[in-house]
């Protein structure tokens, strides 16, 4: 749930709200790329009562990518070709006492139908898809992360997973990598997810690449001297993550430069010196806001940001990169931003969920069972 409520629009419309995106080589089938998109946060509720919207196109987009430059101006070059997995869901149909929902995944090789909640998912040539309610794999102590922004310092560690037991609506895709861009394509792919309207008027509603870009790095307005009263996240979410428009780039850059410097200074020393124009070394790299996976490397639980870190050092990367479901990205990101590895690991004290994700499709754990029925709340009949 690293991107939940990332902007006023997502807060008001939880059905469009992408909470997380994950991408990694399959632990079972190394040549397969796994893509996961979670939506609809804070649903501690019976799984069968949650449905995907029939008015949304849930899309996971993949582009070929290569390392264009390394060192202080590290950057990716994104290829023009695109392969997308687009999920459209039907209106649920009554079946006995329950409602059943179906959907269709429109992928590069055609259409495949999927029944929401069917753990086995649906297979087609080189493709395996799942859609349904699952336990949220994300873990974080929001008291810690929020405390940084509110107290302007690194808070005491409590180690409480604020999201324990929450459910989300998940989409998982496992695809043979060579079927995406051909056997001769490079091993690196860039991944992001979007929700968009699927009526005759098309509009992108939410978009996520890397976790916590919008909430950790873009939300806080206090340090931004350029746009003190503007929540830039809705504008940012409307953008094509592979090709940001020039219109608001200045606003995004100002926000990132200010907030990345704020994180860097939390330990009282500077690990990311700004250039003469006040630009933070990570700003451009993070505005290339997608997960990058190297399919030539085996599955690695802790590949998150390793490719980017290696690029900044001017070294070849060693892992598959991407993002695995159980990786403690909060600690990794905070450490990266605050001391760039030149100090102790910065931890919120939460290192996992009570039920970690498995290494088998659909990878995400089953949702929290139906909670016990509430007693009449505060004596008021429900």
């Amino acid at each position, binding site marked *: 749930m690293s991107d939940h409520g990332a902007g006023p*629009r997502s807060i*008001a*419309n*939880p*059905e*469009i709200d992408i909470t997380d995106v994950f991408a990694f080589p399959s632990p079972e089938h190394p040549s397969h790329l796994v893509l996961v998109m979670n939506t*609809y946060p*804070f*649903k*501690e*509720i*019976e799984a069968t*009562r*949650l*449905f*995907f*919207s*029939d*008015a*949304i196109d849930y899309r996971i987009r993949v582009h070929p990518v290569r390392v264009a430059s390394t060192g202080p101006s590290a950057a990716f070059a994104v290829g023009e070709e695109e392969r997308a997995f687009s999920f459209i869901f039907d*209106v*649920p149909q009554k079946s006995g006492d329950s*409602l059943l929902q179906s959907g269709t995944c429109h992928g590069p090789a055609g259409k495949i139908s999927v029944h929401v909640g069917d753990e086995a998912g649906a297979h087609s040539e080189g493709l395996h898809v799942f859609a349904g309610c699952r336990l949220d794999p994300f873990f974080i102590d929001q008291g810690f992360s929020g405390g940084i922004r509110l107290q302007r310092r690194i808070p005491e560690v409590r180690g409480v997973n604020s999201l324990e037991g929450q459910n989300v609506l998940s989409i998982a895709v496992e695809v043979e990598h060579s079927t995406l861009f051909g056997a001769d394509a490079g091993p690196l792919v860039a991944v992001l997810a979007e929700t968009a*309207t*699927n*009526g*005759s*008027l098309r*509009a992108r*509603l939410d978009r996520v690449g890397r976790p916590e870009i919008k909430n950790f790095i873009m939300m806080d307005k206090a340090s931004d001297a350029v746009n003190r009263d503007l929540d830039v996240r*809705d504008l940012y979410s*409307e953008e094509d993550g592979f090709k940001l428009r020039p219109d608001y780039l200045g606003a995004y850059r100002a926000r990132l430069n200010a907030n990345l410097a704020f994180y860097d200074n939390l330990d009282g020393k500077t690990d990311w010196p700004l250039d003469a124009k006040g630009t933070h070394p990570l700003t451009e790299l993070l505005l290339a806001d997608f997960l990058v996976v190297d399919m030539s490397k085996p599955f690695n639980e802790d590949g998150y940001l390793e490719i980017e870190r290696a690029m900044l050092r001017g070294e070849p990367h060693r892992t598959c990169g991407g993002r695995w479901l159980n990786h403690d990205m909060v600690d990794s990101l905070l450490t990266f931003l605050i001391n760039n590895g030149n100090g102790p690991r910065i931890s919120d004290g939460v290192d996992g969920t009570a039920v970690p994700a498995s290494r088998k499709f659909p990878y995400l754990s089953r949702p929290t069972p139906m*909670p016990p029925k*509430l*007693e009449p*709340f*505060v004596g*008021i*009949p*429900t």
Partner: protein
Amino acid sequence: MTRALSAARMIRTTNGTIAFANLAAQIDGLELHAASGRLTCRSWAELVDLLILRAHVLGRIGDYERTLALAELRLREAPAEGLSFLSLARAHGSLHLFKEALSDLDVAERLGIENAEVQAERAAVLQAVGRYDEALVLRREAVERRADFESIAGLAALHAERGETAEAESLFDESYVRFRGVSPFPLAQLEFQRGHMWWGAGHPLQARDWFDAAWRRLPAYAQAEGHLAEAEAELGDREGAIVRLRRLAGESDDPDYAAQLARILDEHGNAAEADRWRARAEKRYNELVSRHPAAFADHAAEFWSSAGRDPQRGVRLAKLNLEVRDTPRARTLLSRAIAACPAP
């Protein structure tokens, strides 16, 4: 079909069944957190807002009462939180306790709730009590601050309430352009308001079309369907209206549907069935007016001035309603109630 109606229908929103299932799931999830003491202040406010939304759409009086009880509970638990007062203001406003709502908003503002949020709520209350000029200043400021769907729809609703149909229509159209989402709730409410405006302006055909649009977008929207039935009856489709109202009156705890049904059945010459629904509406209005006089004075006055056949009581309630909110609609209601009384 008008161009505006065609444009509205082009905006696809989540199917009503899904939207309601997910709304209920949201409410249940938040209540679970609240019961276990793990709900944040902001989530408490969200819970109250979602309950008010469900109450409005389903026309469930019990939900409004429950919302007020929850907001009062939250205030006892967190009396220093501005959000507690903001939620209480919304709950009070939903039961037409407008003085209390304005007072809550003053406290919420003193306790640090963001100006824009308080002013949006204050504008709604000022509009409800007929202080249109003050509401207009706040609504315009909101649009100047950020011209988004919510602020423009708010300004449109104010013009609609004032009977300024041309200005309202233009703003309603503009708000559709600014809509970025798939939730059917805000658009259905907008379409309902648009229908209400045309109904008040004496254009039942346009009113029917917009009530119909709201109901089609959200088939569980009881208020929209109730008004749709009223417009259909006005346009001559009494049979269709009776079918709708029988179902609504049977399912809802709001006596308005039984009252409408009794009136139309009377006109239709079905006195026996009309008497049954009249008795049911009367019993429920008695309960509700004794518990929430401000909230039900207007509809109860309508009832006793027409199908309820107690015009003197209608006048008393219409006067009470006018004290609560001095709006053109309230003044018209009092005039109608007085006219319904037999000449001395």
